[in-house]
């Protein structure tokens, strides 16, 4: 389509972004839906503990394993705790795991990758080797190993998730930095006497940033799934902390006996969150780079 080669009219950058976002959403209503969900999740994460009708840790053995009803919208678990409250309160922890691991890998992978792409040579080789080594592990097993070895804490789950995603970020950042290293504006900055580090910080990083942000949304979903998987084999967060993965894993034993709500609601919450992050990632990708959409 050679016809749109003409330069776009100048607009206020923010207005342009809003306009563009509106276009993306109109083109892709699913993204709009995902964005609404995302807002809901953030709200639940921030306000969760203030919104729920019950203390998520409070047991009530006379109310154990009650199916969903007016008092307990999602029913109660084996110890009579309100599943609705637990699911809502869990949002914060799951959101934290997702965000923290993604931010961590963003920093680690982003910097390593940019450095590798920009400096090349030994830096590139070392980063490449580390990424290759991690890739050669089945990722979930590596995460399991890290959590088992370092100990069973939220912090270590975050670290493990970040490590297994490292190659992805490092590679994307490396490729972007590599392309931009030779780009005209970098050349210009270099000629005007900027140091490598300055160029890296002010020319390369801001350009690599949006591409990685897209990836972040996709990885957030993976982080939650990863934590859930770890919970299933007994390596997740400590009980009785509410967390979706561990609730599904523990609720799973009640599926056959008919108390489906134990696993169903946390499972649904988990699915909705992961689903939302994935769709949002797709949408962001559209906004950042229309041609890259996959």
């Amino acid at each position, binding site marked *: *389509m*050679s*016809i*749109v*080669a*003409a*330069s*776009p*009219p100048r607009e206020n950058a923010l207005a342009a972004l809003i306009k*563009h976002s509106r*276009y*993306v959403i109109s*083109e892709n209503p699913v993204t709009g839906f995902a964005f609404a969900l995302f807002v809901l999740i953030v709200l639940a994460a921030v306000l969760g503990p203030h919104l729920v009708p019950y203390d998520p840790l409070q047991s009530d053995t006379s109310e154990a394993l009650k199916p969903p009803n007016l008092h307990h919208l999602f029913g109660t678990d084996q110890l009579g705790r309100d599943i609705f409250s637990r699911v809502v309160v869990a949002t914060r922890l799951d959101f934290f795991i997702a965000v923290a691991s993604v931010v961590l890998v963003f920093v680690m992978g982003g910097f390593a990758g940019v450095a590798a792409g920009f400096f090349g040579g030994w830096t590139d080789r070392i980063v490449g080797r580390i990424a290759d080594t991690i890739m050669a592990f089945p990722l979930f097993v590596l995460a399991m190993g890290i959590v088992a070895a370092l100990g069973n804490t939220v912090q270590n789950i975050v670290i493990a998730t970040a490590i297994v995603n490292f190659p992805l970020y490092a590679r994307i950042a490396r490729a972007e930095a590599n392309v931009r290293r030779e780009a005209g504006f970098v050349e210009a900055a270099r000629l005007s006497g900027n140091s490598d580090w300055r160029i890296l910080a002010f020319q390369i990083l801001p350009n690599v940033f949006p591409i990685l942000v897209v990836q972040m949304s996709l990885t957030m979903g993976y982080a939650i799934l990863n934590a859930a998987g770890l919970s299933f084999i007994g390596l997740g967060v400590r009980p009785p902390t509410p967390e979706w993965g561990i609730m599904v894993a523990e609720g799973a034993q009640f599926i056959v006996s008919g108390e489906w709500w134990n696993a169903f609601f946390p499972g649904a919450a988990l699915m909705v969150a992961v689903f939302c992050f994935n769709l949002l990632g797709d949408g962001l990708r559209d906004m950042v780079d*229309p041609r890259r959409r996959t």
Partner: protein
Amino acid sequence: MTADPALSVEDLSVQFRTRSGVVHALDNVSFSLAKGETLALVGESGSGKSVTAYAVMGILDSAGRVTGGRAMLGDLDLLSATPKQLADVRGRKIAMIFQNPRTALNPIRTVGRQIADMLIRHGGVSRRAAPAHAVEMLRAVGITDPARRAKAYPFEMSGGMCQRVMIAIALAAKPSLLIADEPTTGLDVTTQAVIMDLIGDLASDLGMATIFITHDLALAGQRSSRIVVMHAGHVVENAQTKDLFANPRHPYTAELIAATPDSAQNLDALSAIPGSLPDLRRADLPPCRYSERCPRKVAACAQPLPQAAPGASHIVACWNALPDRAQAAYPPAVSAA
């Protein structure tokens, strides 16, 4: 023009829906060409030459939409034809060759098989006989050692050879109209001439009409009998080649001719056309899309463009056209609607 044209395009309009707005890519484009005639569509890149061809072929990409007009191939309006009718016409009655022949061929299929695919689809050739026929086709387009070349992949061949292959594909079903979209772009100068000669020879052998799309006015002048000049989705001038060069009436055409490097002209005289194409996404596009860069702009330019007189041989869409040197005594060749 002729009573029974090979192709007649009337009031073709095309829009593209993009993330930054609707692009009014073509606006009331009309022209026609007679059987056996060679017509050149000329314009800067972005002027809508290729879009016109794609619209006629029904291969606009999914964002593009024909919003009006007809393209008559005999009795069939290509723009409203069913996909099946179109697929039957394409390749069989109209064929097209493209620029950048190396990317325009399937990279993982041998050229012989690509020709054979066409022969089987349109040429009534059996699957078994197709490979041999394909070799013959390659020979016909002047490829040496065609039997060996038939087994080669596009990446193993030069650009010129790929273009020959593409011509072979296009002509496999002996169509009555060939659209050649910048067929020589990306080829070296000697190859360009050879390819153009080949197209010309084959066209006259087969009695085929040809639409030749190019940004190179000089090349168009050498190779076509009629030239349609396009600018920003409008046809600005449509005339016999000799007439156009001798007597350009649209200010844009005149600028183009002046900008064309020609051995006869002094390089010093080469002037660039000021300004660039307007943004076709604008809602406030002026009726004449050249008016914003036009040195001859007048108040009348704010009115809708003048309509061509029916049957006119030299059409110019301008309120303030250059004087018609051939008919200077007469009033402007166009009249207001």
